[in-house]
């Protein structure tokens, strides 16, 4: 999920704690700040700190002057082979190809487990908004292909698109039976996305502030981890007791518009209702169903109806899968 969804969820969870609302009514915003901040923290740790210190065994850096898909495919296949032979985790970083101030050569990597091949296909040159720049790509459609020397198992998507800002990382690890398991973005959702770490931060918070702050921190952090579990990649829920990521429920993708918006909006409504419940005396009277009906069902229903009306007869466009879209601040 995007950062704002986790953040809003953290704040929403905080609003369930009576002391947080009472403190807010007494002009103390601390608990809500902690809830939101720790709701976002797992990704903050990954994207703003940990990834810059994550060491890779191989950096694939295509030459912007002579980009070659075959070279990329060969290097990836070699990495799989190295993992299979060495029985160690081999970490590979695929860098983006920057062509200009607002131009990136896009390429797609596909691990085909049926043919045991890795394919690298060059796409268009795109701008930072990932919109193709017409006439800019001389390499579009070129394909590099390399044979993978062993069976590859992957826990995430079969194709990975590389275009703007930072490129993806693959971790190849031997399964001990002659095959290799591919971990997408091995630095992500590793130790940072563990419920145990949320508990740890809660204890730290208790020591710094009080147990109430600790509870808010643990709740905000945990809701992030649990929300991410709804996606594909999953998280390493009980690090350091577990070493690998638990597979996600595959209910949604991190960059999907509706789940993200739905989470943020639902969080807002929950916060609103919890604040209403905490009012000492109110001249207005409503319940949660009223809030959800008038705040979500009616407006979203009308919007969907209008969208259906203007889109009727059109074939739905299926956009490319966003693999690294959890931050939401790239454009």
């Amino acid at each position, binding site marked *: 999920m*995007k*950062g*704002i*969804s986790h*953040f*809003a969820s953290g*704040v929403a969870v905080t609003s369930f704690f009576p002391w947080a609302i009472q403190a*807010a009514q007494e*002009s103390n*915003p601390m608990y*809500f*700040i902690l809830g*939101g901040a720790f709701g*976002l923290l797992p990704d*903050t740790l990954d994207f*703003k*700190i940990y990834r*810059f*210190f*994550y*060491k*890779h065994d191989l*950096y694939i*850096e295509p030459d912007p002057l002579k980009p070659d898909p075959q070279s990329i495919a060969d290097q990836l296949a070699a990495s799989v082979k190295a993992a299979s032979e060495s029985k160690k985790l081999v970490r590979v970083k695929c*860098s*983006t190809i920057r062509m200009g*101030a607002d131009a990136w050569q896009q390429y797609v990597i596909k691990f085909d487990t049926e043919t045991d091949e890795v394919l690298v296909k060059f796409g268009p040159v795109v*701008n*930072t*908004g*990932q919109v193709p720049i017409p006439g800019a790509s001389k390499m579009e459609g070129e394909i590099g292909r390399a044979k993978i020397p062993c069976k590859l198992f992957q826990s995430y998507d079969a194709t990975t698109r590389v275009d703007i*800002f*930072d*490129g993806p990382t693959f971790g190849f690890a031997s399964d001990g039976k002659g095959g290799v398991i591919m971990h997408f973005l091995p630095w992500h959702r590793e130790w940072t996305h563990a419920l145990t770490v949320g508990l740890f931060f809660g204890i730290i918070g208790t020591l710094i502030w009080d147990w109430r702050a600790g509870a808010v921190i643990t709740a905000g952090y945990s809701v992030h981890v649990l929300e991410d579990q709804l996606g594909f990649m999953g998280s390493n829920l009980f690090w350091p007791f577990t070493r690998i990521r638990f597979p996600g429920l595959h209910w949604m993708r991190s*960059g*999907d*518009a509706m789940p*993200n*918006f739905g989470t*943020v909006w639902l969080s807002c409504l929950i916060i*609103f209702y919890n*604040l*209403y419940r905490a*009012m000492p005396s*109110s*001249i*207005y009277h*409503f319940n949660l169903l009223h809030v959800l009906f008038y705040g979500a069902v009616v407006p979203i229903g009308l*919007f969907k109806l*209008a*969208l259906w009306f*203007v*889109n009727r007869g*059109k074939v739905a466009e299926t*956009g490319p899968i966003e693999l690294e879209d959890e*931050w*939401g*601040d*790239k*454009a």
Partner: protein
Amino acid sequence: MTSALLALFATVVGTVLSCVLSCLPGLHVYNVMGLLVLLIYWLADLGITMPAEVYLPFMSSMIVGWSILNTIPSMLLGAPDESAIFTVLPGQKYLMMGRGYEGTMMTGVGSLAGIFILVFIVGPLAPKLLPVVQAVLRGHMHWVLWVIITYILLSEWPKGGNSGPAGWRKFGDAWRSLAAGLFTFFISGIMGFILLNRSPISTEMAFQNIMPAFVGLFAIPWCLLNIISGAEVPPQHIADSMDVDGSVILRSSAAGGLGGGFAAFFPVITGGIGGLLAGHATAQRDERVFIMSQGVSKVLYYTGAFMLMFVPGLGVTRGGGAWMIKSLHTPVGYGDYYLIMATIAIAGAVSYLIMSPLTRGVIWLIGRYNYRYVSAVALAIIVLLVYLVTSWAGLFIMAVGTGIGLIPVLFASRRLNCLGILLLPIACNMSGFGHKIADLLGLI
């Protein structure tokens, strides 16, 4: 009937005046409104009382017109050069592709959608719903503000550190822009504390305390960058059609409406912050949606915030325009509300009709005269305005603001961080410890 005609006349004149204002990059409608308020006071001192039926529609139509037409300079007079390498906005891309006219008109369609939202959705529902929302949230605005500040500071994406081996160097490269952003926020915040507690501006002009700082933080850096920019604007194509459909308009309206509406309702939250939050929340990646939603958001924020002052039973004042009007007029009942709604509808329609010829005119102008000259003229006008209203002290504040405003531009961090000037001191004040910080700074 006479007052209705008078209001209509004032609306049209105000809208037309906003055309002129809108074409000058960096010139904010609130700067001009400040002058108009002074003029009204001056006339009152002479015994000439201007009726509310004149200045209310006049000023509100200026806000409506400006919020719609100001897209023109922001789209056409902001060619990005290499300094904007990480922050090339979709509108600027359109300009560099020769599609500036189309981009402007798309934003205009968004603005029109924003007016529709205000008149047909917000207008009827606001008196029923917003008082309930306000009653629940009234005591909680302070932490909402803190939470938003937290998100703004935490959510900035590191621009850099994308290549090279892992380690501190890579981390430092990534964090350069983040550090610049944080520095900008806090230094702006300190400036806000100074201006709110010990403003050097004369007390006679205190209602414009923050104006020179805002001009320095936002308008002057833009003009300066336009002037020193190395980029040339390619010839622009006047398109007959736009690359949008109903779906794009709907999605833009939803995203922009949420962002602008949020910013309009919550104190101190600006359109930029609302846009950022809504952009993230709605997860829209289509550049067309981004461009159009800017139009929706701008109208919802500026016009919507102003309109809130007139919503019967709500009793909130949001936005610089409303605060200025508040010293002239106390809204009473549905009469004023309908007057403002009528003004918004008429000024919105007139502004949109003016948009196409005005955009063509500006394109012709920047084709004939280098847009750097246009920016230089605008810069001179802004500086003169600041001097006229706030004198030398204002120019001094403006200069300091400019220094701060250039940091995010040159370090590729968010310009939104400059809003620390309001967010930080007001959030501290709302939570009741602003005076302790001011005391710590030796300001009180």
